[in-house]
């Protein structure tokens, strides 16, 4: 899977009226939250924190959703959502190690944390209809098309492109101006 470059600026640093909602992969409430250590699938590692991951049965490691996971009828039960620990060592950077806000790249190998149950901040694909509290969660499984990033969060059904997640996964309200919103998982 091709890693997306920084698509959005997830946070500004001059707050006129209120600050943003947060950062993808941050576990936003911990009473309680079930966070499980997992191996990252080296063939297809997760590409962004807060991403829905499933277990690759060959490697017993987690990977993001792909075209093979797409279904117009079967509801998908994921393994969890990739958690962002902070701070952690950057393994890549721009020129001279430059790193913009909200550009954190998850580790491509080794151990990662996955939220099995709890509340986590996630990044919506650009341009999707704003979710409502309790709204169904769709993931774009088909190949990236324009703003619809593969493995990214969507709010509406798109035949041949999206997969609906288990109803225990719901959006917990509308996003901020950067498209960051809270996801309720298995709560």
């Amino acid at each position, binding site marked *: 899977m091709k890693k997306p470059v920084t698509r959005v600026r997830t946070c*500004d*640093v*001059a*707050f*006129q*009226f*209120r*600050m943003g909602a947060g950062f993808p992969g941050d576990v936003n*409430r*911990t*009473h309680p939250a079930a966070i499980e250590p997992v191996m990252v699938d080296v063939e297809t590692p997760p590409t962004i924190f807060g991403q829905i991951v499933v277990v690759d049965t060959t490697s017993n490691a987690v990977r993001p959703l792909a075209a093979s996971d797409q279904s117009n009828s079967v509801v998908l039960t994921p393994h969890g959502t990739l958690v962002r*620990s*902070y*701070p*952690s*060592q*950057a393994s*890549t*950077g721009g020129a*001279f*190690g430059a*790193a*913009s*806000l*909200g*550009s*954190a*790249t998850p580790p491509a190998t080794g151990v990662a944390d996955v939220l099995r149950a709890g509340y986590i901040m996630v990044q919506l694909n650009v341009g999707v209809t704003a979710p409502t509290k309790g709204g169904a969660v769709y993931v774009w499984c088909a190949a990236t098309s324009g703003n619809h990033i593969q493995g990214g969060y969507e709010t509406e059904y798109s035949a041949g492109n999206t997969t609906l997640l288990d109803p225990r996964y719901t959006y917990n309200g509308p996003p901020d101006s950067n498209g960051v919103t809270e996801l309720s998982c298995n709560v």
Partner: protein
Amino acid sequence: MKNTIINKSVRMAFRDNGMMTYDGSGRTTDSAGNQLGKPFGNRYTMHDGRTCDSTGAFLVGELERLDPTLHEPLAAVTWGRDIDLREDVTIADEISSFTLSTYGSQGSLGTGNSIGNGKAWIGKSTDQMTGIGLDLAKIPHPMTPWGMELKYTILELESAARLGRPIDQQKFEGLQLKHQMDVDEMVYIGDTSLGLTGLVNNSLVSNVSNFANGASGFATWATKSPDEILTDFNNAITSVWSASGWAVMPDRILIPPTQFGYISTAKVSNAGNVSILKYVQDNNLLTTSGRGKLDIFPLKWLIGSGVGGTVGTVGTVDRMAVYTKDKKRVRYPMTILQRTPIQYDSIYHKATYFCRLGAVEAVYPETMGYFDGL
């Protein structure tokens, strides 16, 4: 955060917090406000050419000088400037309320109660005296609990300390800023979800009107002459003074930043050498009647907060808010920010910070007025 005005009564001191990396370790910043970082004891060398932070730990080159100063987000709150606190409320209180008294008396002679009549005259042998009537209203507002959790793992904490950019202190300052910005919003415009209003959109204030058009045919100050702007000020003061039974002349006027900038720089006339603002400060009703200085301040929450406008959107309907900054007239009830003891849960350290935030109590809404379209 440097611009943040934090009321003393709600300021949380770092000291004795028991949760900060730097508790008890002496100075944490130098005289310029730079973070000094956590001392490692001996000289510390970055063997791999990397320094510890979007992941928070960055790649740094051998010939690179990374400024260790923490550059926090820019944000300013002004509620501490514009309203007094009601401090008797506690974390146990679910409602903050007050009573409002009014009196009544019937004239004794039965000649009516109009101006010039209705006094309590009696004769030398009268035994049927009139009495005084009393009525009280009780005005309640909810005190809504507010809470946020501060949490990190020991591993995150140690990594951040190694970087010299303590996650605990940064998260705490972020939480404080969130608290301050939430209080700021509650004080000025209240909360949409809870249906509460604030200082500049209070539902109890009925003295709301549009400024009259100037000679240009428009009401905006950019199109008005200095005389017309001074008239707007004095009309607003007079309107509120009148609504309060000519008892309370307002001493504070808040206007949007752009209009404040305009009257601060535009001269009162081509022959004059003072700004419209200075001229207004010298020639307003409050000052010329010998009742002190009229405070005029810029306020971001007035951008677009007029009737038909969108708060925060420039170019919609802006508002001027006129009131008296006095705890007896208008105030804000809130409790101090406090926290739970640290909870050690596996490798997590957690603490919840909480308080109760009330809604602006416009005790005498007659002493407040809103004027739109400037």
